[in-house]
């Protein structure tokens, strides 16, 4: 994965308000693992439409963590899932993004 999660959007948004930064990261820490779990559960039962909904939610977290290029991967993955297609390459790339985000928020 070329790019890494970062604080660029969060910093821009907070304008230096550290309490807000922490508050937002807390919310992401809480929501993201649940969204990833939902995504995996829906894939497991081949409910691609619901998995697409999950990717849609995760997509916003991707942008919050400053991952601009990965955002496009999520868009393509979401579109495919909604059409009932599980693209192997997109699935793997999306997994890498999820892993990178998970590691980042655990350390943040």
């Amino acid at each position, binding site marked *: 994965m070329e790019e890494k999660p970062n604080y660029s959007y969060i910093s*821009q*948004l*907070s*304008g230096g308000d550290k309490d807000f930064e922490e*508050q937002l990261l807390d919310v992401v820490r*809480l929501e993201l693992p649940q969204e990833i779990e939902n995504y995996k559960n829906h894939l497991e039962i081949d409910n691609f439409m619901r998995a697409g909904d999950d990717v*849609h939610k995760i997509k916003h*977290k991707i942008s919050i963590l400053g991952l601009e290029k990965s955002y496009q991967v999520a868009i393509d993955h979401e579109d495919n899932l909604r059409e009932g297609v599980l693209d192997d390459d997109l699935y793997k790339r999306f997994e890498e993004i999820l892993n990178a985000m998970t590691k980042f928020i655990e350390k943040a």
Partner: protein
Amino acid sequence: MQCIIVDDEAAARTILKKLASNNENLEVQAEFSNALQAIKHLNQHEVELIFLDIHMPDFTGFDFIQTIKNPPKIILSTSDRNFAIEAFEYDCIVDYIVKPITQERFDKAIKKALSFTPKDEKDTSSEKVDTNIKESGNDLYVNIDRRLIKIDIPSIYLIEARGDYILIKTSGKNYTVHSTMKKIEEKLPENLFLKIHRSFIINVDKIIDIEDNSVLIEKDVIPVSRSNRPELMKRLNLL
């Protein structure tokens, strides 16, 4: 402006609250993770502006708008650019902002909301609607496959009801649009168009001939209903 936030994602609500707190024109009255809670709130409180997520499970933002009576101003916030055209169909929608939202983009949307007048308040009669069409150069924009396609109104010779759709026929091309006869009738100039049957609106200028209870227009023979025939006869310059 008193506003509420409706978004199933907590991170999105946190961001919108922060952006709103930086704008002196806004006061966030409440936030909701689902549309049904928001509807209950709207029944009991006066709200001037809603930040609304389109993509919510079970009950979408568009379902929400269709459910509430006299919707206030609405700013749609979404991670999906694909709904922008559908958003144009609702008079109460002020702006459409794509996540991740920056303060600059947010403030721009609020500026629009402050100067926004719902279409219902601007156009109180069909005569005014007609004027607006003329001012926009006699063009009608229709939504087909998420594209807004321009149709030159005088070139339309026939509109036909087709279930949930209408077929708009022009000299050069035909368009099938998801709409109703009532909606398009309101958008067409009364002096040019006439409903001659519950399923047909014609451009009176394009009539070739009339025989008994039918009208020949271009190559189409269209029935004229008994109740609409007197109005059609009135519109003709009879010798």
